[in-house]
């Protein structure tokens, strides 16, 4: 990065945050701080919901997923449109009618205080940990490739987001997210067109798709019923729907985004905006990764995209083996490039027999390339910490730094930081609200003024920000980063969703039954996660179904309706 790139990064980030805080100045009552001023329009809600979900991990890591595994990850989002319809039709009207600050407040009204606290505690636990990941994930990648100190990157970006979230509250978060997602889209679209311009001139878009398809990168929909496979149509629709329903309907970081809508209509349209555009957005980001894969078939890629880890091992004891593997990798890549050229020539001449033969030869050469990469990864895994063997998170940022012009590099790095801060701000805002409303006001100090709770909310938001920074400073993740976030969510979300579904649809079940059932279901999910080799998406279904069934059984055993406020819901 040069001076221009740094200027774009610093000026854009500060300008957006300063504008949002200035616009929301003077809104100092508790309600507008926690829920917004109640005049938010559907586009702001829609973009805010999208920005909260799409963290920097989404934009840094997803192209790497596309590069490595193709489009299959898009199935993870197949449940989102259906889930958003359920949330818009059932969850949202109840939240708005009861004028709750948090989703867990509803559990208290419908069941009892202990169930409310359990829901809030599960949220705080998983989102508190997740908040650490959302700040760590972009920091580890960006600091590695930029040569920045990891701790300084985490602390600076963390304190910056804490500052404007604490200062401006919910409205400032929504406003910053609106402009931040604009920067993100601008950066991603610019990267897409630059990438297209970098592909060989003789290569048509159809040729690119043929090459991607030839290497199984376009297999977006897997109809297999095998539950071991991480992404299939069925795990995506069913597991993804439960995950998305829990996330959009019961996770305060999302509920808070649409509670402040000007009307039910505005909030619903904001959710429907996401229902329509979520899948195309993820497809576009994955396609970017697939096209980077095609690009690197004609341009020699690094043998390992985390160059810092590779260079370190070359300099510290594994140099000879790694250099030998790199030589083999380069040779295999040159051979693959020649075979691909023959494949494309045969394709353009319409010679189907020659095309099939060249394609087979290209696949064989690609196999040798991948073999060299796998051996390199194995050496790095054996020699270094676990995280250094996974380089897919570095694919996109390496491409940006190596092939994009200055100015655009600054825009893309700004986009990554914008994505990191926008999702982080939504999480902190929700963590602070939940701690204030469901824990502090409910358990510790119930008779204070709104001004007191406003100060408490700011303190708790800052507290969670510091916790996330602390977690990020000591984290060490070995999974692909975006999967780590989703796995963590899937372990907890199912049970929380089960509690809400019981609240909405099983009116005869009371608080005591659902409370103990939720604990039992969560224990079951922990045990199954440790023992069953199934896709993590299924834990959303298992946790939810277990919670609902256990609640019905427990209520039958208890024999009477418990809890209070059953009249508060339809």
């Amino acid at each position: 990065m040069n001076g221009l790139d740094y200027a774009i990064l610093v000026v854009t980030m500060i300008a957006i945050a300063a504008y949002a805080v200035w616009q929301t100045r003077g809104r100092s009552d508790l309600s507008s701080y926690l829920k917004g001023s109640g005049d938010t329009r559907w586009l702001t809600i829609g973009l805010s919901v999208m920005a909260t979900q799409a963290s920097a991990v989404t934009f840094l890591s997803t192209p790497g997923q596309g590069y490595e595994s193709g489009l299959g990850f898009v199935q993870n989002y197949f449940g989102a449109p259906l889930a958003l319809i359920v949330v818009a039709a059932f969850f949202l009207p109840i939240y708005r009618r009861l004028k709750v600050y948090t989703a867990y407040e509803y559990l208290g009204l419908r069941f009892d205080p202990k169930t409310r606290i359990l829901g809030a505690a599960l949220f705080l636990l998983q989102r508190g940990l997740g908040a650490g990941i959302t700040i760590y994930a972009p920091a580890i990648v960006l600091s590695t490739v930029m040569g920045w100190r990891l701790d300084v990157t985490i602390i600076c970006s963390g304190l910056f987001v804490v500052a404007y979230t604490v200062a401006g509250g919910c409205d400032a978060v929504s406003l910053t997210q609106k402009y931040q997602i604009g920067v993100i889209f601008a950066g991603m679209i610019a990267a897409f067109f630059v990438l297209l311009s970098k592909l060989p001139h003789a290569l048509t878009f159809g040729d690119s798709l043929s090459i991607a398809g030839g290497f199984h990168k376009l297999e977006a929909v897997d109809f297999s019923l095998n539950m071991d496979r991480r992404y299939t149509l069925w795990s995506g629709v069913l597991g993804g729907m439960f995950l998305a329903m829990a996330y959009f309907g019961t996770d305060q970081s999302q509920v808070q985004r649409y509670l402040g809508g000007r009307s039910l209509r505005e909030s619903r349209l904001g959710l429907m905006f996401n229902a329509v555009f979520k899948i195309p957005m993820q497809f576009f980001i994955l396609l970017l990764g697939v096209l980077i894969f095609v690009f690197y078939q004609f341009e020699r890629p690094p043998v390992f995209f985390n160059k810092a880890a590779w260079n370190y091992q070359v300099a510290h004891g594994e140099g000879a083996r790694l250099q030998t593997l790199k030589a083999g990798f380069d040779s295999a890549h040159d051979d693959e490039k020649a075979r691909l050229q023959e494949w494309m020539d045969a394709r353009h001449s319409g010679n189907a027999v020659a095309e099939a033969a060249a394609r087979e030869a290209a696949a064989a050469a690609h196999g040798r390339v991948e073999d060299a990469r796998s051996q390199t990864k194995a050496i790095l895994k054996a020699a270094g910490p676990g995280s250094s063997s996974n380089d897919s998170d570095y694919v996109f940022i390496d491409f940006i730094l190596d092939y994009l012009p200055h100015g655009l590099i600054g825009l893309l790095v700004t986009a990554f930081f914008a994505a990191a801060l926008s999702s982080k701000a939504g999480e902190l805002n929700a963590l602070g609200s939940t701690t204030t409303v469901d824990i502090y006001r409910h358990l510790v100090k119930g008779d204070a003024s709104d001004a007191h709770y406003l100060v408490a909310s700011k303190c708790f938001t800052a507290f969670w920000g510091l916790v996330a920074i602390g977690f990020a400073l000591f984290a060490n993740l070995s999974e692909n980063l975006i999967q780590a976030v989703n796995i963590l969510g899937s372990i907890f979300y199912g049970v929380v969703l089960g509690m809400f579904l019981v609240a909405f649809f099983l009116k005869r079940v009371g608080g005591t039954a659902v409370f103990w059932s939720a604990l039992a279901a969560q224990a079951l999910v922990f045990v199954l996660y440790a023992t069953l080799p199934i896709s993590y998406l299924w834990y959303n279904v298992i946790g939810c179904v277990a919670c609902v069934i256990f609640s019905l059984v427990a209520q039958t055993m208890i024999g009477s309706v418990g809890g209070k406020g059953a009249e508060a819901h339809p």
Partner: protein
Amino acid sequence: MMQPQDDEKTGLPGLRTWRQVYVAVIVVFVAWVVLLAALGRAFP
């Protein structure tokens, strides 16, 4: 005929009830799944 309340109006051209909006979203979703499946088959 009763007028729908403000919250029940969608304000979208051609989609006057929320039920119609939800059906339209499902149609778009199914279209995406079909297109994605077709993409994989068009470039095997």
